[in-house]
């Protein structure tokens, strides 16, 4: 048996003048750019959560909505994002059990899965997508829409959330986010 030396912490460590280093200056030049290309409910959230966290750390944050991601900022669609179990082998409604893939396209399955996911997200106190984007804009986040997607879908600025700052080309976005850390979702 190995002898074990037990030390008791009877002393406290004096740390005069200890103040958290919020390091605002170090973040001053930091930027993050998030490309949101998916319009499924489950794939809308990762970009929003990262954006919200980045803003809370004082990081300049830009979101670029493209292709299916457009549904997150189109006024007539943004309240109705859906989550489908079709092709998703990682969905486990009960314990570790899988849903047989042959059942996933049945009528009502997407509505049920969407309802369940929305409830789980709400239970965590996380807002729905439009309200989450409100919060991101309030925190100083910038929303941009993809020119090519808008042209393909025949949408204009009046179809989009009012706080989308512009419909811009991919080249514009790259220029705008010079030096940013980039995340494609």
């Amino acid at each position, binding site marked *: 048996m190995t002898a074990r030396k037990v030390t008791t*912490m009877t002393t*406290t*460590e*004096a*740390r*005069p*003048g*200890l*103040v*958290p*280093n*919020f390091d*605002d200056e170090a*973040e001053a030049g930091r930027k993050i750019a998030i490309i949101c290309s998916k319009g499924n409910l489950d794939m809308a959230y990762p970009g929003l*959560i990262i954006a*919200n*966290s980045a803003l*809370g*750390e*004082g990081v300049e944050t830009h979101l670029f909505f493209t292709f299916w991601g457009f549904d997150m900022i189109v006024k007539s669609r943004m309240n109705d994002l859906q989550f489908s179990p079709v092709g998703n082998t990682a969905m486990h409604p009960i314990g570790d059990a899988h849903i047989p893939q042959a059942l996933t396209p049945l009528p009502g399955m997407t509505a049920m899965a969407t309802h369940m996911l929305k409830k789980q997200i709400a239970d*965590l*106190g*996380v*807002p729905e997508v439009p309200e*989450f984007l409100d*919060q991101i804009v*309030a*925190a*100083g986040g910038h929303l941009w829409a993809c020119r090519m997607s808008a042209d393909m879908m025949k949408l204009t600025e009046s179809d989009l959330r009012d706080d989308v700052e512009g419909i811009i080309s991919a080249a514009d976005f790259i220029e705008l986010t010079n030096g940013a850390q980039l995340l494609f979702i």
Partner: protein
Amino acid sequence: MPVTTLDGHAVHVDDEGFLTEYHEWDEDLAKVLAANIGIELTDAHWKVLRFLRADFTAKGETATTRRVQAVGGVPVKEQFALFPKKPGKKMAYIAGLPKPHGCV
């Protein structure tokens, strides 16, 4: 556990300097904590701080910016104006609470 001295009082803090003992905080100390990070407290700041303190006793964890808006009634935009750049951490520090752990 580190101990630091603020305004003549010895208080327990974590390695970053956030207070670890809820009852070692009082409103005079909050003014010192705020001054440490360059913030002068106004009534608007106090509304946030009092909500955070009360919510912590109820929930056992520090409210996130989202919760300060949804439950505390202080909009996120205002939180960023009051506690610039990193409102979640700065509010917690001045309120003598741990950093918020929630993602949203």
